């Protein structure tokens, strides 16, 4: 529904748009140089997700600072991810990478997580069908089916997936997880289904970094699409042709 409405909105002229926006003050937000009109609704609980929407993230790397790991902390807190002081094998759904350009000495830091590929290699290799892509583009592991073979971990070029080696207690109700299965960033699927934004994005914005933006890549009126259209966004390892849902600026 909202998709249809938004395409109708796109057809409005700027003048008409402004006029109607003034008439209906509700739902209008004016940010510097940006007008937002649409008030998206969380989908009804009984409705299945559709491919009309494709959820994505835009990470503005010029605003992401070295040493800040607010997004990582938020993810670990919300999903109750606990380590065992074994950095090589402890689970991580999102991590910070520090990349140095050897030629210029330029150092940058960027968050790395499941890139929610359009053509996910983890899904290609999964022998049981546990690794799958939801209609709205979110790549997930169905741990009811996962046998813990870790083939997907090998296939992922982003090292985004982890294997839980230990028995887990007191899990988050919204993020059930246990020993012997593979897991990764879910794009906070339970929050998204309830009309909320992912925890990392929320934390980044609450701390006034504003380096992460979440939205619908299929909706030309969404803020993320507008920014991507205007400034572009890079895929990491674009040469692999994976059509990632997570895009980066300033890398």
């Amino acid at each position, binding site marked *: 529904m909202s998709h249809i409405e938004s395409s109708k909105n796109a057809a409005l002229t700027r003048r008409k748009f402004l006029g109607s926006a003034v008439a209906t003050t509700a739902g209008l937000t004016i940010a510097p140089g940006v007008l937002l009109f649409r008030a998206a609704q969380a989908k009804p609980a009984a409705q299945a997700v559709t491919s009309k929407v494709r959820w994505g993230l835009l990470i503005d790397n010029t605003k992401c600072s070295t040493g800040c790991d607010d997004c990582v902390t938020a993810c670990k807190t919300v999903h109750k991810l606990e380590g065992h002081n074994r950095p090589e094998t402890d689970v991580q759904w999102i991590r910070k990478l520090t990349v140095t350009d050897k030629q210029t000495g330029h150092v940058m830091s960027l968050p790395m997580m499941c890139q929610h590929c359009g053509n996910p290699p983890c899904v290609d290799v999964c022998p049981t069908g546990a690794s799958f892509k939801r209609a709205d583009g979110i790549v997930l592991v169905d741990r009811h089916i996962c046998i813990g073979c870790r083939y997907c971990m090998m296939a992922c070029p982003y090292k985004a997936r982890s294997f839980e080696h230990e028995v*887990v207690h007191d899990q988050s109700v919204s993020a059930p997880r246990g020993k012997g299965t593979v897991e990764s960033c879910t794009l906070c699927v339970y929050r998204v289904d309830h009309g909320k934004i992912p925890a990392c994005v929320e934390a980044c914005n609450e701390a006034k970094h504003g380096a992460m933006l979440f939205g619908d890549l299929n909706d030309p009126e969404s803020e993320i699409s507008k920014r991507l259209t205007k400034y572009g966004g890079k895929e990491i390892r674009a040469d692999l042709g994976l059509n990632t849902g997570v895009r980066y600026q300033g890398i």
Partner: protein
Amino acid sequence: MSVGLYKKKLSLLLAGLILTLPLSLFAEGILPTVPKAKAKATAEYGCVNPVADMRRNHMKYLLHHRDQTMHKGIRTKKYSLAKCIACHVTPDKNGKYPKFGDNDFFCSSCHNYAAVTIDCFQCHNDNPKSAYSSLNLNRQSLPEGHEKFTSNDTLPSGDAK
């Protein structure tokens, strides 16, 4: 005594035994004692469906709902495992919640008796008090540039506070 009368007496005796058998079994604790749910989900049935149906088919409902939620993002509350737990797992006198595996944990009370192993709680939380607060669903403020959503469906509240 004629054979016919003897047969009649024996059958009466047997009938009496059969009638009292279930009662004595419960009294002596041979059959499992299933803890009472916290509240009635529906006025007419008690549970979300008639109890007899739930006893026979709960696994089918849970399995179906599991796939619907996981793969299609359908998050209705009727057959949600978290909602079952919220209502069926009750605290003892000291306010302590039983863990999965204890005989006074709702699922275990019967599954231990029937020797049917379930692995739901290797991943899912068995405690109804586990916080939905991690979701921060009440937070209204959204950062600049994000669409303002209005959630018209809330999570099962249960007794999660």
